């Protein structure tokens, strides 16, 4: 009988971790199959397109690739894209902090409605996001006559593109801050208050440092979407190359004009921006998780009570 004794788990010992793993895992063939499916999917839908973009960009040699970035119109589209992002992202940063603060720190009438409204841009098509502003500020829109009388151009001009981009990227900062701030609670802010700190001082010295990685994460997501947005911006832009084209719009124009090498060159530049964003995002996610867990720990600890 001695040969039946399992030396790794001798009788009487209770190797719980081991049993848990066994209890929740699938047979080997199942695991391999699932991993295989994921890998095939990943290659076909994510890795391959990215490779094709860079391959297409470099198909006619490095010279053609680089010459695309000396083209005046293409350079202008890069400028417009960056300009739109530079305005939309800070606007949403301020809004995001304010909204997350209001939602997590106060219980007020209409709070659920505000939460739903913040999410709205994620639920509706970006085209609608653009169309809203055409209906509002376009020539026949509600504000159209007034704007025209004052010679203010919003639609088919930069202000409209900024508005549409801001709408589409509305939720990202607020959405990444709300769960974080909820988990951290507001005791540290209360402590600062009793020590005589004012509201701005508390925001600067306590709240912002506590949420900085979550905030950074939200900013990156917001920025990625702001630079890549096509649908909403295409509705409100006049799509005039060299005037109101952003990078995504310029890619479409180049492609439609059969300038494939240039189209892919701009696309690869945009993809590169996305890849940089992605690596920053991973960093922020990792830091943010640590901050989140620290927040939860500090909330959980006091409930561990030892009664004498």
């Amino acid at each position: 009988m001695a040969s039946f004794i399992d030396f790794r788990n001798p009788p009487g010992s209770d190797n719980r971790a081991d049993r848990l793993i066994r209890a929740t895992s699938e047979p080997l063939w199942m695991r391999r199959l699932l991993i295989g499916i994921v890998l095939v999917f990943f290659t076909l839908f994510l890795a391959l397109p990215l490779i094709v973009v860079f391959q297409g960009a470099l198909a006619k040699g490095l010279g053609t690739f680089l010459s695309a970035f000396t083209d005046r119109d293409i350079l202008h589209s890069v400028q417009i894209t960056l300009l739109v992002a530079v305005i939309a992202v800070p606007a949403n940063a301020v809004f995001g902090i304010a909204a997350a603060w209001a939602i997590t720190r106060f219980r007020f009438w209409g709070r659920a409605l505000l939460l739903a409204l913040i999410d709205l841009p994620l639920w509706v098509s970006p085209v609608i996001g653009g169309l809203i502003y055409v209906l509002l500020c376009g020539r026949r829109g509600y504000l159209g006559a007034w704007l025209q009388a004052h010679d203010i151009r919003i639609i088919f001009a930069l202000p409209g593109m900024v508005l549409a981009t801001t709408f589409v990227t509305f939720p990202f900062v607020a959405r990444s801050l709300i769960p974080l701030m909820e988990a951290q609670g507001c005791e540290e802010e209360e402590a600062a208050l009793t020590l005589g700190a004012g509201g701005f001082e508390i925001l600067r010295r306590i709240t912002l440092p506590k949420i900085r990685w979550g905030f950074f994460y939200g900013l990156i997501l917001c920025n990625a979407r702001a630079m890549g947005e096509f649908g909403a911006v295409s509705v409100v832009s006049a799509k005039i190359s060299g005037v109101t084209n952003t990078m995504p719009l310029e890619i479409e124009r180049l492609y439609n004009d059969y300038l494939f090498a240039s189209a892919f060159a701009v696309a690869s530049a945009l993809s590169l921006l996305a890849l940089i964003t992605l690596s920053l995002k991973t960093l922020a996610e990792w830091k943010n998780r640590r901050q989140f867990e620290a927040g939860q720990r500090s909330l959980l600890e006091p409930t561990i009570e030892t009664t004498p």
Partner: protein
Amino acid sequence: MSIEITSLTKSFGAFPAVNDVSLKIETGEMVAFLGPSGSGKTTLLRLIAGLEFADKGEIFFEAENVTMKSANERKAGFVFQSYALFNHMTIFENIAFGLRVAPRAKRLTKEKIRERVLSLLETIQLSGLENRFPVQLSGGQRQRIAFARALAVEPKVLLLDEPFGALDAKVRRELRTWLGEFHERTRLTSLFVTHDQEEAFEVADRVVIFDKGSVQKIGTPEEIRSGTSNAFVRDFLALDI
């Protein structure tokens, strides 16, 4: 500093947390708020600190009506059950916080701040930990840091919300003794919330017993233990008389 509360009432929705409470606390007293959870004792403490605002009634610090003043104007030293230390700051910065955010005219110089922080660390017997972060300390150490942080701005009153609630029995007894000695020495008006009657009776000059948002009994530990006709108090204290 003496504190006077007159018919203070605070509700959360339909739930009356503090119901028509009047109380006078003399300068230099150590008073315990004792009662089961949900009896309103913590809410009353937060009302006094200015972290909640009353629906009705008034609060006086000495002769000054502070009912509508915000917490950062009242500057009552508050120690939280969960310490509420600033986790992204060192121990030194935690204790120095209240001194650093003081209005420019009243702010101490860098050297003076350093001096005070280090002397406070000595008072709480944690010298040498100034460069650590809160997560690197034990529960008892963190609670003492929270004390030092509250004391750094020299408050006229100290409010303690279940200060030892999260600690194990041994550390709890040590800190309780330490708090008693500290109060003997400084005679700083102090209020502390607890649900542990042994703690209340040992440390406090007077004990206020709460139930359902109302004061059931006020008195010195001896007076309360010597018997009462209040059914709740008899039951809560398990007095078999």
